[in-house]
């Protein structure tokens, strides 16, 4: 495990959607780096920009969305300057993605085999058709689909939800990408199927040494699979750190709030949940200061005026909150 070397570096990325009602800053300056063989979780609620950010890495941002600033560097190459053709080679080959709803991402009129083989042949991996088919069968077996030789000639509608997601994973990994972006891959699945898919992803990650960006709103899933976590709120990362720090020593009020408002299967008594009051902000008219300020129970004057900078609160653990300046910086304070 060499985590020092950086696979992906995102710096001050800004993505906006230019709608008739005005500019929506879906991603407002986020930075992080991802090492080889690392699993990074991105947690946030709907509208926090977690998917948009991932789509811009892989060049799938749709109009009226536009990257308005910042840089994305993948193994030293500037992804944002890629031509259409370079992007096509990059996508699927070195980075691939699995989506929330496998049914809408598989083509219903082609067999599963066709779609898997297509991925290989498009990327010119030097496979003949027969070899590509053999490789496709091998991949289906790898993701745990029984009877792959027969299954490969079936259509997506003949697969169950869990199996479709397995087929999606097979398709994403068939070209041996360095980075897999998983956008809510288990949200549409039942818990028992979710457990199967998570186990599969963990096993494959170890076996194939793929880095994963795992986007989800489910804190339990993050705890299970991720090494590092970024918590996003309203287009910004508010806290980032190793998974244990985020769960056992959260520093940002939003992260604390999320953890306190989630009912847990392992809690002792029947404690009342502590909700985060208010509603997510309107991205068309974002507040001037900290975006979480209006919902924060410890909101101060400065929070409404100015966006907080990141503060190093632990080893590789950063948090953007003015409260860290009130107390001694670097010390976790109880609020």
């Amino acid at each position: 495990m060499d985590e020092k070397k950086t696979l992906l570096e995102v710096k001050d990325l800004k993505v906006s959607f230019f709608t008739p009602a005005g500019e929506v800053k879906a991603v407002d300056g986020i930075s992080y780096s991802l090492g080889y063989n690392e699993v990074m979780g991105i947690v946030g609620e709907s509208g926090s920009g977690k998917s948009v950010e991932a789509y811009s890495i892989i060049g799938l941002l749709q109009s009226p969305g536009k990257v308005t600033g910042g840089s994305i560097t993948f193994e030293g190459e500037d992804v944002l300057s890629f031509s259409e053709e370079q992007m096509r080679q990059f996508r699927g080959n070195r980075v691939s993605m699995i989506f929330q709803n496998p049914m809408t991402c598989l083509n219903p009129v082609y067999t599963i085999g066709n779609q898997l083989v297509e991925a290989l042949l498009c990327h010119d991996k030097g496979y003949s058709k027969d070899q590509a088919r053999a490789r496709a069968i091998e991949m289906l077996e790898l993701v745990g689909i029984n009877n792959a030789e027969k299954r490969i000639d079936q259509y997506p509608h003949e697969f169950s939800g869990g199996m479709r997601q397995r087929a999606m994973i097979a398709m994403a990994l068939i070209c041996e990408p360095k980075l897999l972006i998983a956008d809510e891959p288990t949200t549409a699945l039942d818990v028992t199927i979710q457990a199967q898919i998570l186990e599969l992803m963990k096993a494959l990650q170890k076996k194939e040494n793929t880095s994963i960006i795992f986007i989800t709103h489910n804190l339990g899933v993050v705890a299970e699979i991720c090494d590092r976590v970024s918590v996003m709120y309203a287009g910004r990362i508010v806290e980032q750190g190793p998974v244990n720090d985020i769960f056992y020593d959260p520093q940002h009020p939003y992260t604390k709030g999320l953890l306190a408002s989630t009912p847990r299967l392992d809690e002792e008594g029947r404690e009342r949940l502590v909700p985060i009051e208010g509603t997510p902000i309107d991205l068309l008219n974002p507040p001037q200061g900290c975006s979480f300020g209006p919902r924060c129970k410890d909101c101060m004057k400065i929070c409404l005026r100015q966006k907080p900078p990141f503060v190093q609160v632990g080893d590789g653990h950063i948090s953007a909150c003015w409260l860290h300046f009130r107390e001694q910086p670097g010390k976790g304070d109880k609020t």
Partner: protein
Amino acid sequence: MSDILLKIENLSKYFPVKGNLFRKKKYVQAVESVSLEIFKGETLGLVGESGCGKTTLGRTIIRLYEPTAGRIEYDGTPIYDSAQKIAVDMLPYRRKMQIIFQDPSASLDPRMTVGEIVGEALDIHKLCSGKKDRQERIKALLDEVGLNTEHANRFPHEFSGGQQQRVGIARALAVEPEFIVCDEPISALDVSIQSQVVNMLEDLQRDKGLTYLFIAHDISVVRHISNRIGVMYLGQLVELGESYELCSHPIHPYTQTLLSAVPLPDPEKSRARQRILLEGDIPSPLDPPGGCRFHTRCPYATERCRAEQPALKEYGPGHYAACHLLEQG
């Protein structure tokens, strides 16, 4: 807590699937012979995977779906009995039994204002003496669910998901019901909004002495809000018990796997624990397996499980399960 508010016996609901010249008419056995009692003032949680029939059961209990067979008793009076051919007029009972739906945007009429939506229930049951009274009741209801009273003149699309769900709750509360079926009321909401709605439901229950049937697939939420939990699999009730007891000592193999599959928001615990992984998917309710319906996926299935259907029996105080293995001890 000992008074029974609602009692169902061997309730079944089948949905016909259209046949044709070449295909026989088939039935989806969405709910198959479920018996339950719901006590006054409690929250009974119902969990299970998609397609297990929990929503169908909830809707059949309040007869939004006409049952195929069985008996439903509300507060001692039968409101449906297939053997005795009883099927009472539901209108008076709709005042007592209400439902909150999963998708708030789909369950609110987009062309009615919030005031009209909430007021409609008042009109149907003729609960207001005049226009002014009606206005005031609507305001009071909106206030109760944490909405601004000026919101009465707005349309559903002007609200966020959490607020829409509050409108749905206000509509259910309008007739001052005793019993509310909450059908996945928070599944469509963001995490930070979910807890707001859960707390509100708890407060309302305490203040008004409501009884809930709380249906959800998220077992952590159900455990939090419920006094007792029923676990369903393929249309049948497989385990029923006090919620903490059931979650800490599940006895049915399906409940055990279901609980071990729930991700814990705790990195060390979730990585340390042993998971029971199930093979395969839920069989089709069109053609459910014979014997115990879980036997195709159960790691402990025996010959007997394939041949004979287990009955729901009591194995601890108030803790029921349907499994042959438990009988053998």
